[in-house]
């Protein structure tokens, strides 16, 4: 289904938008028979952006507990393992996202998953204790799968693709 949705900034709070950098949402081009209500689309993208904030904070502060609000399943396990390893090595990483360019591509027929792709520009800074080892501007295309929980969509898969 193709909806003529203009490029828009969703109802993301100004605070959130500022913390996430710019957010661009491309018109949704869904594969699958299930229509995606605007409210569902907005909620999923809002929750996805908040999950990125949670991830950034968790990797910077080495606090896996910050992940639980935005992540479940495989994504949660992998990021938790990364944080544990960072802690052991005395490292932490800062992800400063400059822009998101998001497109929802799949809403599964039974309504239990939403998939999106996100072209992200960000700066990754790797620190040993408080010493900056490197700062690198990055551009990556992420694919994410979100699943609904009681009150919000949570990210089950978050993975950068080769470009």
């Amino acid at each position, binding site marked *: 289904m193709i909806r003529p949705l203009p490029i828009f900034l969703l109802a993301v709070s100004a605070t959130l938008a500022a913390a996430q950098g710019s957010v661009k949402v491309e018109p949704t081009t869904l594969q699958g*028979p299930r229509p995606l209500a605007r409210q569902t689309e907005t909620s999923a993208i809002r929750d996805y952006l908040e999950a990125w904030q949670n991830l950034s904070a968790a990797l910077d502060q080495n606090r896996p507990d910050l992940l639980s609000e935005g992540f479940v399943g495989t994504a949660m396990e*992998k990021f938790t393992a990364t944080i544990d*390893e960072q802690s052991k090595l005395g490292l932490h990483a800062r992800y400063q996202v400059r822009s998101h360019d998001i497109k929802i591509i799949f809403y599964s027929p*039974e309504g239990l*998953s939403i*998939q999106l792709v996100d072209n992200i520009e960000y700066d990754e800074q790797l620190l*040993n204790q408080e010493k900056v080892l490197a700062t*690198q501007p990055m551009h990556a295309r992420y694919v994410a799968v979100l699943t609904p929980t009681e009150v919000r969509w949570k990210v089950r898969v978050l993975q950068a693709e080769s*470009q």
Partner: protein
Amino acid sequence: MMIRTGTALLAFAVSACLMPALGQTSGLAFPKNVTAGSAFTIPTNGAGRATLYVAGPSEVFKRDVQLGQPLVFSASDLDHAGHYLAVLVSDSSTETSEFDVVPASQPADLTFLARPSRLPVDLQNGITGAVYLFDPFQNLIVKPTPVSFELSVPSGATQTRTATTNEGAAWTEMNSATKEGSGKFVAQAGNISATRIIQQVPGDPCGLKMTARKVGDKLDLVTDPLRDCNGNAVSEGTIVTFTESWNGGETTVDVPVKHDVAEVQVPAYNGARISVATGVVMGNEIRWEGQ
């Protein structure tokens, strides 16, 4: 992209036989793409000791490096797909590089969402299935991959569909069978499959009909065996409603189907009109004239 600091730059020649594609032609020369769970080697130049850091959201590690010796990565070093930053720090310089770890192409796991678990027979596109494909390291396989779906029932034709994943996901729709029973809904990619059971139950009764006969001072009302439009016996316990109206009075009795029929006894009023229904399906009407 590469950033160099310091004067003693490390120059890395790349072994073409070991490097599928290079992110850069000099410096910290990681392959542009590394397949998850694969071993690879990067030759290094220079002398002295350095420290290599590799960091991404899904994996991080640190390793001491002897410059001039090849950097050997074993199959277990990088198995989470993602975009990584590599930093090589020596006494005199810091070099950075980016590279991707891509999923292995062979599916090892699939998530299969099938709905509903129970539905009436003969429903067009009533069954849906969606899959996500994963490699042995729980990476989503984003490369287009064929997936087959098969719905089989004990007494009906098997339906087969094929789809190709887009960004790791594929879906299909199936019709429910015309005969009741448990269907096996299978999704398969490569050698990996997952099965869900879909219970296909009879639809609404078709051609609901009752007959009446006098038994003492009562009327015995009994339906013909209840079948749906495909000849499946409706489920035991399906409620059938008999309504008797006479001289302004009305009696309604709900009766569960037992052994394919619904049966009840009601008072035999002369001139009574008796109707039968189940769900939204109306049956015949009888006018009792005291036969």
